[in-house]
């Protein structure tokens, strides 16, 4: 099976190539078969690999990619437990989402283009997680970014979608540039980009807290932050919802945005050498999860709420990474992929059945009209809120408890995480109650077909039971201390989501409390607007980066450097004009000048003659 590792990314890639080249000749049925089937086949390959896996990392080198001087990077794969988890999520969830798309996108004029991009994305994402060196990882990293750009801007005839796609690409590119610099720094230090060799060399050469290690990991973190939409580079994700909903489910919830988490986990041996960076990871995660949770509370667009919630959940993963709960983070990554994909697909079904309605204020009472969707959404929201026994509960609880155990700022991190959990439950069930209960505002005109319902059901199962799955990452990460925090800590962690659920019920369904007075007070309004605008980070960046850049372009548009050459030209012109004016045509003037010349000349002769 080891020899067939290459097949896993190659299958979707081949399908994408076929779809691009043959888009004119393939009918929609063939396109769907090819697009869905290739990912399914890749998923089967992953399944076989997993089943036959002995516990030792698998490696395969296809060919030497770049070899210059010290640098030697091959197109080679390295598959261990962590990779297997990621591969399973990508191909498994990916397959379900492809299946869902086959119905969701039916009738679109660019059906083939859609599946080509989606397959390309899967191939790039698989390359990212399977890469055995950072250069190949970067290849996949940029590849998924490009596919994300293409898919967010899939309906590019609307200029706003194009703008969202560009924003997504450019903002992540900022992180990518930082990551590239991190790669350069690591290469300068160790002369290799091979992840395993790098980890070994770093452990041998660097003591804990080495400044270079801190710098290098901070730069890598920059890349991770960009890709995973964490502070301060999170602004692109909510806008990226402009893409088709399955795309949001696959790329902007389940897989690509968690690439940052994967990167940190993959290079955890470097991060362990740089405690300040790890703390930064935790703090970034905490702030992001709180900021995003508050923002999610104040949104109206169903997809934006989910987007902010994704940011928030990835914040949990970062928090987990930051406090050393590696496997818990990866676990949360997996369960998050299940329930967030489920939520997005369910939301997509709602949108699909309601004529592309996005605003939750125009929804309501869908519980009885779209029962499958309602059930899916409910399960997804429960898992997202980490209600006990759902998959989200297991993973999030691990992270929250690990945060408490963290030395120093642990309790603060824990408190923040618990607050976040409360908010998560609040906004999740706000969504459920507003969309599915109450008065019906818009009526659905169709029901999700089998291709949409099947993935929903499968994901429901995983969202509920995913917590019981074990992930084979014990050999990858250092042993984590099995802390046993005080009982009250456990109790609070379990109880807080229920509290949030209760508050949501009271506010949005039971109408026990009417919070509108609070919201409409001037202070409440101010907060509301502040949070609705995502803490005005977008506006800040607009003023800080975009406007100055635009001003700069306007200033430079006339090409100031060319003025320099213009000055040379003007000088020549001036000389020409001056000299041509001396050609006045006046004979007497010529004679006078000539006389003066003769006088000077004779003077010179006289001096030269020694007079």
């Amino acid at each position: 099976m080891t020899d067939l590792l290459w097949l896993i990314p190659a299958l979707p890639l081949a399908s994408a190539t076929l779809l691009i080249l043959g888009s004119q000749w393939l009918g929609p049925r063939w396109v769907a078969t090819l697009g869905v089937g290739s990912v399914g086949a890749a998923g089967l390959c992953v399944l076989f690999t997993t089943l036959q896996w002995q516990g030792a990392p698998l490696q395969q080198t296809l060919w030497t990619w770049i070899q210059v001087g010290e640098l030697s990077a091959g197109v080679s794969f390295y598959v261990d437990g962590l990779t297997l988890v990621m591969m399973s999520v990508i191909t498994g969830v990916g397959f379900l989402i492809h299946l869902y798309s086959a119905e969701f996108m039916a009738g679109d004029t660019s059906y083939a283009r859609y599946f080509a991009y989606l397959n390309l994305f899967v191939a790039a994402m698989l390359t990212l997680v399977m890469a055995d060196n950072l250069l190949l990882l970067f290849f996949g990293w940029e590849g998924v970014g490009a596919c994300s750009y293409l898919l967010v801007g899939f309906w590019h005839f609307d200029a706003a979608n194009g703008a969202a796609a560009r924003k997504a690409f450019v903002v992540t590119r900022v992180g990518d540039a930082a990551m590239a610099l991190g790669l350069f720094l690591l290469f300068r230090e160790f002369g290799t980009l091979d992840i395993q060799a790098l980890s070994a060399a770093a452990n041998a050469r660097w003591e804990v807290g080495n400044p270079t290690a801190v710098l290098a990991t901070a730069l890598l973190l920059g890349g991770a932050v960009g890709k995973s939409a964490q502070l301060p580079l999170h602004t692109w994700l909510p806008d990226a919802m402009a893409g088709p909903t399955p795309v949001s489910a696959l790329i902007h919830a389940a897989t690509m945005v968690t690439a940052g988490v994967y990167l940190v986990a993959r290079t955890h041996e470097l991060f362990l050498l740089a405690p300040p960076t790890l703390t930064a990871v935790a703090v970034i995660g905490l702030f992001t999860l709180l900021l995003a949770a508050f923002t999610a509370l104040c949104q109206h667009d169903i997809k934006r709420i989910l987007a902010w919630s994704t940011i928030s959940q990835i914040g949990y993963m970062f928090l987990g990474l930051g406090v050393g709960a590696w496997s818990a983070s990866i676990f949360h990554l997996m369960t998050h992929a299940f329930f967030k994909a489920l939520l997005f697909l369910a939301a997509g079904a709602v949108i699909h059945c309601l004529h592309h309605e996005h605003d939750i204020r125009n929804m309501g009472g869908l519980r009885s009209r779209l029962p499958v969707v309602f059930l899916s959404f409910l399960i997804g929201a429960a898992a997202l809120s980490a209600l006990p026994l759902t998959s989200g509960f297991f993973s999030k609880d691990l992270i929250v408890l690990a945060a408490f155990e963290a030395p120093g700022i642990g309790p603060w991190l824990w408190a923040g995480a618990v607050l976040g959990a409360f908010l998560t439950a609040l906004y999740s069930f706000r969504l459920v109650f507003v969309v599915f209960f109450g008065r019906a505002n818009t009526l659905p005109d169709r029901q999700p077909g089998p291709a949409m319902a099947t993935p929903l059901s499968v994901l429901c199962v995983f969202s509920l039971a995913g917590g019981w799955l074990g992930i084979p990452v014990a050999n990858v990460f250092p042993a984590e201390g099995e802390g046993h925090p005080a009982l009250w800590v456990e109790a609070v962690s379990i109880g807080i989501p229920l509290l949030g659920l209760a508050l949501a019920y009271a506010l949005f369904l039971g109408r026990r409390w009417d919070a509108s007075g609070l919201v409409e007070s001037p202070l409440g309004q101010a907060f509301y607007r502040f949070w609705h605008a995502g803490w005005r980070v977008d506006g800040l960046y607009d003023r800080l980066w975009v406007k100055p850049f635009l001003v700069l372009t306007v200033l430079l548009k006339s090409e100031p450097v060319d003025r320099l050459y213009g000055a040379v030209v003007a000088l020549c012109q001036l000389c020409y004009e001056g000299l041509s004016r001396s050609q006045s045509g006046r004979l007497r003037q010529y004679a006078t000048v000539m006389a003066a010349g003769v006088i000077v000349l004779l003077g010179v002769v006289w001096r030269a003659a020694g007079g």
Partner: protein
Amino acid sequence: MILALFYVAAAIALLSTAMALSRTNATHALIYLIMSLLSVAVIFFIIGAPFAAALEIVIYAGAIMVLFVFVIMMLNLGEAGQIREREWLKPRSWILPGIFAAALLAELLVLENGLSGTTTGVAVEPKTVGLTLFGPYVLAVELASMLLLAGLVGAYHVGRSFLARDRGVKHQ
């Protein structure tokens, strides 16, 4: 005696030249100019160049000046021309040329200052001149003939369109 004659002739030459160039009436100026040329011819004779003196009288004072006379007659300047000339010859316009000419003269005189020597006063015969002219200087003669030919053609061309106007034929 001869020396005195030289100085007299020189004085006449200078004076008549100065008069010629400051006249407003072109005909008067021409007469003064001829006088100047004649006195230079006298000087040629004195310093031993009789052939040059003859040529000076025959060609310069004779032929060339007659050309001037013809042109002045054709232009028919009259009284109006004199008034205009007087207008143009304001004292102020003499200042700069005067300074320049004086400076040049000063330079020339200073440069000539170191020279000492005399003219022999022995005549160089026309025969000698002729032999030299068609001996070592034959190329110069050819050049001169070319120049005269060019002058002829040029004058004809320039003058022809002048004549053509009178016949009512448009040129150019």
